[in-house]
């Protein structure tokens, strides 16, 4: 169960990328994604892919985690490749099987789109693998702030998001514990028809809901006891400072992206 959520799971580390301000990381990612969609030449794209690999290496996260993160999109990539190969016309005919042809423009565009997809996912993984969910939501909360002026309670939304993220592992752990507890009472979650299986989940879902509601109740009380009020301004334990090195990284990323745009010409 825990294996399937490694996509985007935080991996602790000490690298420069880990220590950057999350706002800077999000901004850099947005810049990279934007450039990724602007570039039209292979040179620029390969350059961006190499840049991604360089960043991955410097993050110190084992490479296998990125590979595992890419695995879910492999099928989409394969599908896109097939569609482009067989249905895009133009250029030299490379292969002819009866009335089906593979033409050079299709191959070129297919490879381009897939490379872009892989690079996009690598950059996104780089953010989620090196940033704790909590600082990620803080960072996103910052970029949502302008929405406050049209009446959206952005602080509260960020708070809800970070609480939800905070409790995902707790609930996962709890559901596993529950599963084992009911297994030791002879429960069977695997065999039988789909209706039987659905019915066998009742002993998991009912206690899970009960404890989730109780937990929510207790949390609300605890937060109020510690002075949480809707609409009140909050201060933070870890101050959100953009350090000189954050600026340096931003400039570095911007320069690299500019280089990619030059290559694009």
């Amino acid at each position, binding site marked *: 169960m*825990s294996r399937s959520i490694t996509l985007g799971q935080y*991996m*602790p580390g000490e690298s420069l990328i880990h220590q950057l301000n999350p706002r800077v990381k999000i901004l850099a990612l947005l810049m990279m994604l934007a450039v990724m969609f602007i570039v039209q030449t292979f040179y620029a794209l390969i350059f961006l892919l190499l840049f991604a690999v360089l960043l991955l290496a410097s993050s110190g996260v084992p490479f296998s985690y990125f590979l595992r993160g890419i695995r879910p999109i492999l099928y989409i990539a394969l599908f896109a490749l097939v569609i482009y190969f067989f249905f895009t016309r133009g250029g030299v005919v490379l292969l002819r099987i009866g009335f089906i042809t593979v033409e050079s423009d299709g191959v070129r565009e297919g490879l381009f789109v897939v490379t872009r997809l892989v690079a996009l996912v690598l950059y996104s993984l780089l953010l989620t693998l090196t940033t704790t969910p909590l600082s990620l939501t803080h960072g996103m909360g910052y970029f949502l702030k302008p929405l406050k002026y049209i009446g959206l309670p952005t602080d509260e939304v960020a708070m809800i998001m970070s609480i939800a993220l905070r409790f995902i592992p707790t609930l996962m752990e709890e559901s596993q*514990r*529950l599963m*084992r*507890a*009911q*297994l*030791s*009472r*002879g*429960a*069977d979650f695997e065999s039988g028809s789909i209706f039987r299986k659905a019915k066998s989940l*009742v*002993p998991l*879902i*009912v*206690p899970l809901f*009960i*404890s989730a509601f109780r937990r929510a109740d207790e949390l609300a009380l605890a937060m109020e006891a510690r002075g949480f009020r809707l609409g009140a301004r909050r201060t933070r334990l870890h101050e959100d400072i953009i350090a000189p090195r954050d600026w340096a990284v931003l400039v570095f990323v911007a320069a690299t992206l500019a280089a990619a745009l030059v290559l694009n010409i």
Partner: protein
Amino acid sequence: MFIGTEKLSHIYMPGTPYATKALEEVSFSLDRGDFALLIGPSGSGKSTLIQHLNGLLKPSGGKVIFEDRELGSDSVDLLALRKRIGLVFQMAEEHFFSETVYDEVAFAPRNLGLDEVKVEQNVKLALERVGLEWEVVHDRHPFQLSSGQKRLVALAAVLSLQPEVLILDEPTAGLDPGGRLHLFALLKSLNQQAGLTVLVCTHHMDEVADLADSVLVLNRGKVIMSGPAHDIFARRQEFNKLGLSLPEVTEVMHCLAAAGLPARTDIYSLEQARAEINSLKRRLEK
């Protein structure tokens, strides 16, 4: 060997930076009819160890043995195993999901595929064994009961499997002193009258120390001490070092001995302490 482990190791989330060794080469064994204690500070691997004993967790290394056979060899049917080795989780009343006490206790025997007549017999016997009255509780909602009664229903919900081995994880956590005493009296009678092999994980030693035949002490996933209860409890210094404490009466007897009185220190229950102090008084008056 009736039930036990040989060099059992367990690693959580192996192959990730979150990998943690929960158990390291743990070996122990129990005989049929034993009453054993598993003690250790929080996070020492107690819960991990007992979840191996009925096949809920698979060893990362080593073996779990039941009736001289290794668990996890394909021939062992897990449902049959869980019927014979009952495991009561910590705060097991949080796992309730039924609308009546009857259904809650009947969950396990129904899972065994018994017919409803046999199920009802099992439920009746289980409720009787934990000292709950059938007429009073069987059609009540489990959440209407007191916390002590809920815990007893949770125990009955496992006893309804009619297991031969009963393993309990912190069975008295969150109970008041009355509930604790009642529960331990119950475990004693299950062990002595019904002949169940009992293994209790705890760090509340006050009521239970006197019942135990053997003791296993875990710390950081390793066995620190194991053997007959009296030998283990004599090693008071080591206990204190681990942040564990002997029963309070034992501590009192140690204080008396430290004050120079000829008091015995192998005293683990109030009755024993009362008898020893009376005899000490008589000896001193002479």
